[in-house]
């Protein structure tokens, strides 16, 4: 009976499909992208959310970009000079920069934008502690004067990921940094179609005809941002991973930003689909809460570090050998800072060693509350593995499942565990965001005053970080980074759990797509 009914339904459906057919091809080219998450906030300075950052790259331009080799390259800036005492930076914008409303980009716009960014971004904030003043020195020029030399001015201005110092018109940039902007005008390659923006459904961008790309080859967030499609549509409604993959296979969408690892192998086999692995990956970490038992005890933290071999985490979470690799560094492996200094406690650790360390630590059986996100498939298995390893080591574990949003609000709580606090959570960082001792938020060690959650306290670590900030010599910086890392492992700030690449997938017909891993950008694509 049921079989018969299904067949009847099928027959009807077939007739249906025949009648309507596939909608006729459009004259204009539209690129349909399935982003990795939902776009909720349209102010990339106000929030660090990667979706807002990517949105920023669509409509805004940056002073500098980072190429795929992590080198800083000029983008809006045409030329610049640094004074001999390394205190005065003079910048000149390149020609032909226009906002979407037709107004030219001026030095005043830049100064206002940087000022707002400096109040929100961690690295920007660090830069501002060095800045004496910023001023427009002409219609297309501006100057930054430092109180003392700083080694990361261009790195900050060319920062590829959140918060990116996007350049907005002055009137927009003057918005209170604690409030969100309400006008979305930039000088970037795409114009945001506000009327068609439906949160949770779609965001639409059309080509900005008057955008003048640089002549250089595009690379990372640097180089020429050429636009070859008329329209980019972000499909924000399609969030089920299987449905994303199906839609891509059916040609209903062009790109999916986040290929679930389990679909990697299948998609590789699909002739119509190209899998992209970016050079720059992400790093997993589990974070200790240093304020409460048992992780207020450095010996317990070290025991855990010893048990946290990276392989089980990577195998469970990623599972595809092509896509992960253990990385002993707290910074990005493969970059100059990606050294393994001081990592032996973890990289040479074993369960037996961990058990010994735990025995000596004076661990009293306090259960560890691990917060586990239920709705973030890219990190949801790390806590499971962490729990299992700690249980095998002999600790008591209370694995508490919650959605990511709850986790995010709860991790901000410094309260004891029984009052809604926590002991551990795990997350992933885009490599550039943890690429050095300054921007790696997990290394802040000012106790309860540390901006990022977990609140380790170690004066020596802070000193080393400050020295790194002041240092301008690249070689010495690498050495200092090693020192910072060594100290961080000694303190046990957190446990790095290896690197992975988040593959992206697109239809074969898509050409020229830049998948640097720095950020998701949609210029230079031909369809």
């Amino acid at each position, binding site marked *: 009976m049921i079989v018969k009914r299904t067949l009847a339904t099928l027959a009807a459906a077939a007739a249906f499909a025949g009648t309507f057919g596939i909608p006729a091809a459009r004259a204009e080219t539209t690129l349909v992208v399935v982003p990795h998450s939902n776009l909720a906030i349209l102010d990339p300075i106000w929030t660090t959310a990667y979706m807002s950052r990517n949105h920023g790259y669509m409509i805004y331009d940056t002073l500098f970009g980072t190429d795929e080799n992590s080198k800083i390259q000029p983008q809006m800036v045409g030329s610049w000079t640094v004074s001999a005492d390394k205190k005065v930076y003079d910048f000149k914008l390149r020609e032909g920069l226009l906002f979407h409303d037709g107004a030219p980009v001026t030095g005043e716009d830049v100064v206002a934008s940087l000022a707002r960014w400096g109040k929100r971004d961690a690295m920007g904030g660090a830069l501002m502690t060095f800045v004496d003043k910023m001023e427009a020195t002409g219609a297309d020029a501006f100057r930054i004067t430092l109180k003392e030399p700083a080694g990361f001015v261009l790195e900050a201005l060319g920062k590829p990921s959140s918060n990116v110092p996007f350049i907005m018109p002055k009137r927009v940039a003057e918005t209170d940094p604690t409030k969100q902007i309400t006008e979305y005008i930039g000088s970037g390659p795409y114009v945001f179609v506000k009327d068609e923006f439906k949160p949770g459904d779609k965001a639409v961008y059309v080509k900005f005809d008057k955008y003048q790309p640089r002549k250089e080859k595009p690379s990372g967030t640097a180089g020429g941002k050429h636009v070859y499609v008329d329209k980019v549509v972000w499909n924000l409604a399609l969030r089920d991973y*299987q449905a994303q993959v199906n839609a891509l296979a059916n040609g209903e969408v062009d790109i999916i930003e986040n290929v*679930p690892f*389990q679909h990697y192998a299948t998609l590789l086999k699909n002739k119509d689909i190209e899998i992209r692995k970016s050079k720059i990956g992400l790093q997993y970490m589990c974070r200790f809460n240093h304020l409460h038992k048992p992780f207020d005890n450095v010996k317990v933290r070290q025991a855990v570090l010893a048990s946290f071999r990276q392989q089980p985490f990577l195998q469970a979470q990623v*599972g595809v050998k092509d896509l992960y690799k253990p990385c002993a560094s707290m910074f990005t492996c493969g970059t100059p800072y990606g050294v393994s200094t001081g990592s032996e406690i973890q990289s040479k650790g074993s369960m037996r060693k961990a058990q010994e360390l735990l025995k000596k630590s004076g661990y009293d059986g306090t259960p560890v509350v691990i917060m586990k996100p*239920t709705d973030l498939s890219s990190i949801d298995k790390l806590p499971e593995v962490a729990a299992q390893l700690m249980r095998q080591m002999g600790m008591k574990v209370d694995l508490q*499942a919650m*959605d990511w949003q709850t986790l995010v609000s709860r991790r901000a709580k410094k309260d004891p565990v029984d009052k809604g606090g926590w002991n551990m959570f795990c997350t992933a960082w885009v490599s550039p965001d943890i690429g050095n001792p300054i921007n790696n938020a997990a290394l802040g060690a000012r106790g309860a005053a540390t901006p990022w959650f977990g609140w380790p306290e170690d004066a020596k670590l802070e000193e080393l970080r400050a020295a790194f900030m002041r240092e301008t010599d690249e070689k010495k910086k690498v050495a200092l980074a090693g020192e910072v890392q060594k100290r961080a492992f000694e303190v046990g700030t957190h446990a790095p759990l290896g690197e992975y690449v988040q593959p992206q997938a697109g239809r074969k017909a898509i050409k020229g797509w830049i998948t640097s891993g720095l950020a998701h950008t949609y210029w230079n694509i031909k369809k």
Partner: protein
Amino acid sequence: MAATGDTRYEELSVEAADIRPHETTWQRVKKSGSVRLGGAALAVLLLIAAAAPWLGTVDPTMFDAGSRDLVPGKAGEMMTLDGDLLRHTFWFGSDSLGRDIYSRVIYGTRVSLFVGVVVALLSLVGGILLGLVAGYIRWLDGVIMRVMDGIMAIPAILIAIALVAMWRPSLSTVIIAIAIPEIPRVTRLVRSLVLTIREEPYVEAAISLGSSTPKIMFGHILPNTIAPLVVQGTFICAAAILIEAILSFLGVGLPPEIPTWGNIMAEGRIAFNEYPHTVFIPGIFLTVTVLAVNILGDGLRDTLDPKMAKRI
């Protein structure tokens, strides 16, 4: 019959009170095909739930990433908490963490049945109390029923989602969140039964016999609401099992490591094309269970409460 003068009448005037000879309710229930079918299926499921540890299962939360994403029937290795390596055949395959889906499905029977039964009991108890109060204490009737109308105006699943999301998801919060939107339905049923039954002549007779209100409520009215309530209870049980699965599926239900059918399916939906069995196997178990409860409910309704059987 007493041997008096009117035996002649008794013999001559046979009143055919019932054309069929009378069976007891229990006899009718036992004879119902639906009750037998649903009851048998449910008995098997209960047995599975009770005997879960002895059905060739392993710890349903244990995993080994080395054995992840196995297809049904494949063997693999698992490391236990004590560090021993265990060889295990994954009859229903393994999930993306390397957990044994067979064990999870079998243990999931426990969760589903427990949720269904406890939700049914809770909402029945809540509904009976509120319904009796509303049906008997007239000045409270308006207040209670308006609140119930308010709850009923909110789709049940929205209340459940909102409540579970509000509290930390756990077995008890999920159960309460599913039970709350069911309470108004029971309350309404009990109230209307009370209002109907209290008009019955036998209740009026009890009043004139000087029986106290509680005696009437619990002695005359409540026993006569049992049949429709049992029926309603089975339907609530079925609905609760479904809603629990839906909550898990939407990612707002029980914590994912707890082996529930909804969780297994939610985990499986990420790679549904590759491993459709991770959705379909628990889906079949879920459907069969709910089907069994519903069939049992249908059978009970037809036999216990023929009036209601006519209604739906």
